[in-house]
């Protein structure tokens, strides 16, 4: 109450002055002391400076005295302190090996990825096991390690850990060796090398994909290549486990693996007859001499399998020993059913059952049949005609029973005249044809003149195909009309060559020139057509039948150097006739100088002197001056 009174009466005093009352002071300090003592008690008894409990793995490091086991005074957490305890990891890091030495981790503080003081159940190692890149550990997961192993602990387990100190550490990923046998059992029980990868890859142990039998002392050849491994390498039980012997197998002799079905009768060297390709297929280079058995193998018999003749179930290849009189039919079936006798060799030989030209040595007499073989038929392979059975009757009346129509039905419409191939061809050969000119002359187109000498192909072979019918009978069906468009139709009709030409001789032309506007007379009757109608100066020479002028100078050369030209035209006929070159029609009296007296007897050349004009000699007929003194006083 006294305290309250003092409040009311002395309100200007500061609040703390109220506390100066002895009772409160004691209470105040007692309280402070109590809390401080409690504080010291807590501090000393629990040493609770830690920011949180350590995880189970580090639980033994709990307590004030252990702080510096991990913490460095004044410098947080140092990697050295971590690695001082984690010795196995330290060993890995110092060897620059393992995940902690990878580029991803190197240089980082431990505390970047790991932490502590997050409670007893805190897991300081956490990563996504599904996406973890195992390559960073320095051991790439390949094949089955990648696809078949689903859980890290399938490999990272105490059984596989080689470092003794790590063996019993739960959840550790350290301590595995990269050697296969550190995790896998040695299936081969130390009979093979420790280098598993020399034979196996990571995908399939059983396949042993890296294994190459050729590198062993026994190279696989032929059928051995296709054989299952287990055929030679048998599975057995050794030391209570399945085991296959791959090393130390005897292979010096075939009988090491194979059973001698001949029971030693043919010696120990199987390769005398057999090879690796096939037991039943005897090697072509076999050295077994069949002749010693009394039966020499020839032809195809050399190539066939022994079993074709020797049944393995009978007498070890000696089934023929007791048989007498061994003929082809001992082994072969008579497909002719005895109709052709028992002597097969009369037709067949050992090279081929088929009777081919080159190998035919048979003695079958075809003369006995209704169709004796003649000409080329004598050397044809029997099978060519006898497709199935030699004894089956064959139609042979017509050639086309066997042969194809080489003319592709060209003679179908002429069956009445040419019923069979034999009309033109014989068994001596398809060519040459036996068709005669007489036969040809019975056709629509008789061969006359030069046509008789022509080979058949001149007319009947067009574009490499023989054509005999409907090739036409007109000249232009075979010959080319070289006058087409050059000679008017009125002179030779519709390309009727025979108007001028005949089959006798092409060059002999029989044309009546009187039918033209220029009937021929005199020397013109003797001239060749080409002299006037072929322009020989052009190359190739042009035919000129139309538009030829009747002027002499059109064809003839003016040798007088145009002395007689009047108005551009020289009329040769004034002096010359068409019969002869002689100036028959010339009368000197009609000139300006009439010849009389002795002049009549004077040779022309006495007055008409030849002079050189250009390259031609021109006789001068036009004498300019003809007074006596012009000639006589020279």
């Amino acid at each position: 109450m006294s305290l309250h009174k003092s409040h009311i009466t002395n309100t200007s005093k500061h609040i703390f002055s109220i506390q100066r009352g002895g009772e409160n002071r004691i209470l105040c300090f007692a309280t402070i002391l109590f809390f401080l003592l409690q504080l010291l008690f807590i501090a000393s008894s629990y040493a609770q400076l830690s920011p949180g409990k350590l995880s189970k793995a580090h639980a033994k490091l709990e307590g004030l005295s252990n702080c510096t086991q991990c913490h460095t005074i004044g410098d947080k957490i140092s990697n050295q302190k971590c690695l001082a305890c984690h010795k196995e990891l330290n060993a890995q890091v110092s060897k620059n090996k393992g995940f902690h030495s990878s580029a991803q981790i190197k240089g980082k503080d431990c505390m970047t990825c790991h932490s502590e003081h997050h409670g007893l159940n805190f897991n300081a190692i956490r990563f996504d096991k599904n996406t973890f890149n195992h390559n960073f550990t320095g051991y790439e997961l390949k094949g089955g390690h990648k696809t078949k192993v689903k859980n890290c602990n399938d490999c990272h387990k105490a059984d596989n850990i080689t470092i003794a100190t790590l063996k019993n550490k739960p959840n550790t990923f350290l301590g595995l060796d990269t050697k296969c046998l550190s995790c896998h059992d040695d299936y081969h029980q130390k009979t093979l090398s420790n280098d598993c990868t020399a034979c196996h890859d990571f995908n399939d142990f059983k396949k042993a994909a890296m294994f190459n039998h050729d590198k062993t002392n026994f190279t696989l050849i032929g059928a051995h290549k296709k054989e299952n491994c287990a055929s030679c390498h048998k599975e057995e039980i050794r030391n209570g486990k399945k085991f296959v012997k791959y090393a130390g197998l005897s292979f010096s002799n075939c009988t090491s693996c194979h059973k001698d079905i001949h029971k030693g009768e043919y010696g120990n060297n199987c390769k005398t007859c057999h090879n690796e390709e096939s037991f039943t297929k005897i090697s072509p280079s076999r050295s077994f001499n069949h002749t010693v058995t009394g039966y020499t193998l020839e032809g195809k018999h050399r190539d066939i399998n022994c079993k074709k003749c020797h049944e393995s179930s009978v007498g070890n290849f000696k089934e023929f020993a007791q048989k007498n009189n061994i003929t082809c039919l001992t082994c072969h079936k008579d497909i002719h059913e005895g109709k052709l006798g028992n002597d097969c060799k009369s037709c067949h030989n050992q090279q081929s059952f088929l009777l081919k030209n080159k190998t035919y040595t048979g003695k079958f007499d075809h003369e006995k049949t209704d169709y004796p073989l003649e000409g080329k038929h004598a050397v044809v392979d029997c099978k060519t005609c006898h497709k199935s059975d030699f004894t089956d009757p064959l139609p042979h009346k017509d050639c086309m029973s066997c042969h194809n129509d080489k003319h592709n039905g060209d003679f179908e419409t002429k069956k009445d005249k040419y019923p069979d191939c034999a009309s033109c061809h014989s068994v001596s050969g398809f060519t040459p044809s036996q068709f005669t000119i007489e036969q040809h002359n019975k056709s629509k187109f008789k061969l006359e003149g030069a046509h008789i000498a022509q080979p058949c192909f001149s007319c009947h072979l067009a574009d490499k195909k023989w054509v005999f019918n409907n090739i036409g009978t007109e000249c232009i069906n075979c010959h080319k009309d070289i006058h087409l468009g050059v000679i008017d139709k009125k002179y030779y009709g519709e390309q009727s060559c025979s108007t001028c030409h005949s089959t006798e001789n092409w060059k002999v032309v029989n044309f009546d020139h009187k039918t033209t506007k220029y009937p021929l007379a005199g020397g013109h009757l003797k001239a060749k057509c080409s002299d006037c109608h072929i322009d020989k100066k052009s190359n190739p020479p042009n035919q000129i039948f139309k538009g030829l002028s009747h002027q002499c100078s059109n064809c003839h050369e003016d040798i007088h150097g145009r002395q007689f030209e009047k108005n551009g035209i020289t009329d040769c006929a004034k002096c010359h006739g068409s019969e002869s070159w002689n100036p028959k029609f010339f009368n000197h009296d009609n000139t300006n100088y009439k010849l009389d007296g002795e002049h009549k007897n004077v040779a022309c050349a006495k007055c008409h002197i030849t002079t050189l004009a250009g390259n031609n000699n021109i006789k001068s007929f036009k004498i300019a001056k003809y007074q006596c003194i012009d000639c006589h006083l020279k």
Partner: protein
Amino acid sequence: MTKTAHRIYLGTMTSIVILVTIYLFYRGLPYYKTSIEERFYHVDHKILKPSGPIGHGLGITGTLLMIIGVFGYQARKYMKSLARVWVLKHWLEFHIFLCTLGPIMILFHTSFKFGGLVSISFWSMVAVVASGVVGRFIYLQIPRTIQGRELSLNEIRGMQTELAEKIEIELSSEKLNEILALTKRSSSKKNIIAQYLADWKLKINIKQQLKKTNLERQKLNGVMSLVSNELNMNRKIERLQVMQKWFNYWHVIHLPFAIIMLVIMLIHVGVTIAFGYKWIF
């Protein structure tokens, strides 16, 4: 400081506290909700862990705010040279601001992990803050001068008379007497809560009576404010002695917790510095 300036002063400090709290919750809630064992693998762990840039920063800042808040206020109270600097009421408000914001920052600095020795410091801090809230309530129950000095009962009674005069201006003397008669305390004493409820009912009663006099709305509000003050004053007068006693005991709690908090905080800071977690700014 004018009334408005004071309001801005308080508003600013309150806003800062609220905004900082909201921001820190918004930024770190997913992380703080994560269990202790899982936190290390949370994306925000590196930043928000107590030693992370934000976590550690909050620790340092919060500590400094509290040290300034505590020792600044103490200095103002005990150092004569500071006696004239600002009024004590504002110092107290600044003390409350710093010592509210500081502990909130420390709360986020702990990342809601309360263990070890330092947790004693933390819980002491919680106790100091809690006692501070209670203290503030008691403090308000004791009328003071603006300088923070406690008023005597006579001074309080004088204030009451002033109030009555103000009401008189607004109302007729008859009405005033009527209202004052209503506010008179009956002889029977009631406990604090019962008295508060009785006063509340009385205020409603008076308001209804005033409404019948057709008083203007503005004047009515003014009168009601005065009536409220009157009733508050009545209650404070009634409880003054009790409150003064409580306030006396309160100091015994508030200060020792603060000392414990500071001592263990110093140990905590010392240990962290020793282990290499130093000044980060």
